[in-house]
């Protein structure tokens, strides 16, 4: 193989490596910056799907990072807040029965704050309320 052929091959390899580098760099940078809630298992579209399926319990548990102080992208915040509402409604019954009066009060404050903030989702919030009422079996 003459020198010219080797040179042409090396240029081709360089172009290939350059393309690989340029293609992979954004992915590597964004994977360094990903937020906890952006992980595969907690994708906001999953929460939206569960809310649409009226599967409020799973939406509640998937939204839990918001209660742990995770940063949520503004465009996904509504789904997480709806899930937070569902979880607070569920836990409020437990705190009430356990006698955690202060915690019940702060749950109620947050629940009514969400009700006010998310008035456009009133129908969903009503359904979540109903789902918790139906879930309580203590008196059945």
């Amino acid at each position, binding site marked *: 193989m003459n020198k010219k052929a080797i040179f042409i091959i090396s240029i081709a390899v360089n172009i290939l490596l350059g393309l*690989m580098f340029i293609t992979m760099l954004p992915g590597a940078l964004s994977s360094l910056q990903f937020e906890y809630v952006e992980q595969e298992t907690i994708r906001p579209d999953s929460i939206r799907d569960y809310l649409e399926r*009226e*599967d409020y319990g799973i939406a509640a*548990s998937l939204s839990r990072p918001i209660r742990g102080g995770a940063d949520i992208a503004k465009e996904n915040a509504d789904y997480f807040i709806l899930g937070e509402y569902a979880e607070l409604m*569920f836990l409020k*019954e437990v705190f009430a029965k356990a006698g955690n009066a202060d*915690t019940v009060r702060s749950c109620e404050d947050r629940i009514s704050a969400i009700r006010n903030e998310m008035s456009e989702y009133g129908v969903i919030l009503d359904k979540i309320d109903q789902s918790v009422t139906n879930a309580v079996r203590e008196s059945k």
Partner: protein
Amino acid sequence: MKCSSCGAEIGLTDKVCAHCGRVITENAGYRADLNFYKKDSARTKKKVRQILSENIPMVISSFVMIVLLIAVIAVLYVKGNAYSFREDAARRDSVKNYETYSVIIKDYLDAGDYTGFAAFEENHSIAEWEEPYADLWLLCDMAKEYAYLVSAVESATMFGPDARWYNPESYVRDCRSAIWDFNFEFERRLSDIDADPYRDYIYDMKAKADIIMEVYLGLDEQGREQYFASSDIQQEAYLEEVLIHE
């Protein structure tokens, strides 16, 4: 060497003696060799320069290839280890913010909000297995089991009027398994829990798990005793009855 006429010291390449002016013939061989080597050296230098100039593009290309190869390997390494890099950075942050985080953790615990605590612990990559959070390890472990139980009961009980159940049996199985896991871990670690500085919170967690079973699964104290005394199949049958058929 010395001049054969006057005896003065002369150089190997001198053509005449600087003292007596005699033309020196004895070193003619040396001078001829010197001229040959000078010309040969110049020829070699020229040849080297020519070879170098012919290969400069190849050298540059090879250098670029090495740099690109290193860059691609570095990007692959970063991509493959991004999660651990970020986790390590978050852990360092959690150690740096220990005082602030401790106050927040205490607020969660005092409120009895153990799912919130578990979420906070996970979101902030708190390494409960090392200092300064080492005393939290048992509490964190139990809070994770508790959060799993809460998630499973929520998932199995909270549905809207038009909900679509794709696989209700799996909800029931998860629910039974989460309840069993939490209670098994609690019983198994009872002696550790009694010696733990956060035992009151763990006992409160257990009390809340019992309340969840009572409120959402209809199992009061007597019901729980019967439930835990029954086999896995009977437990699953009970949960199916309560969660699916009712």
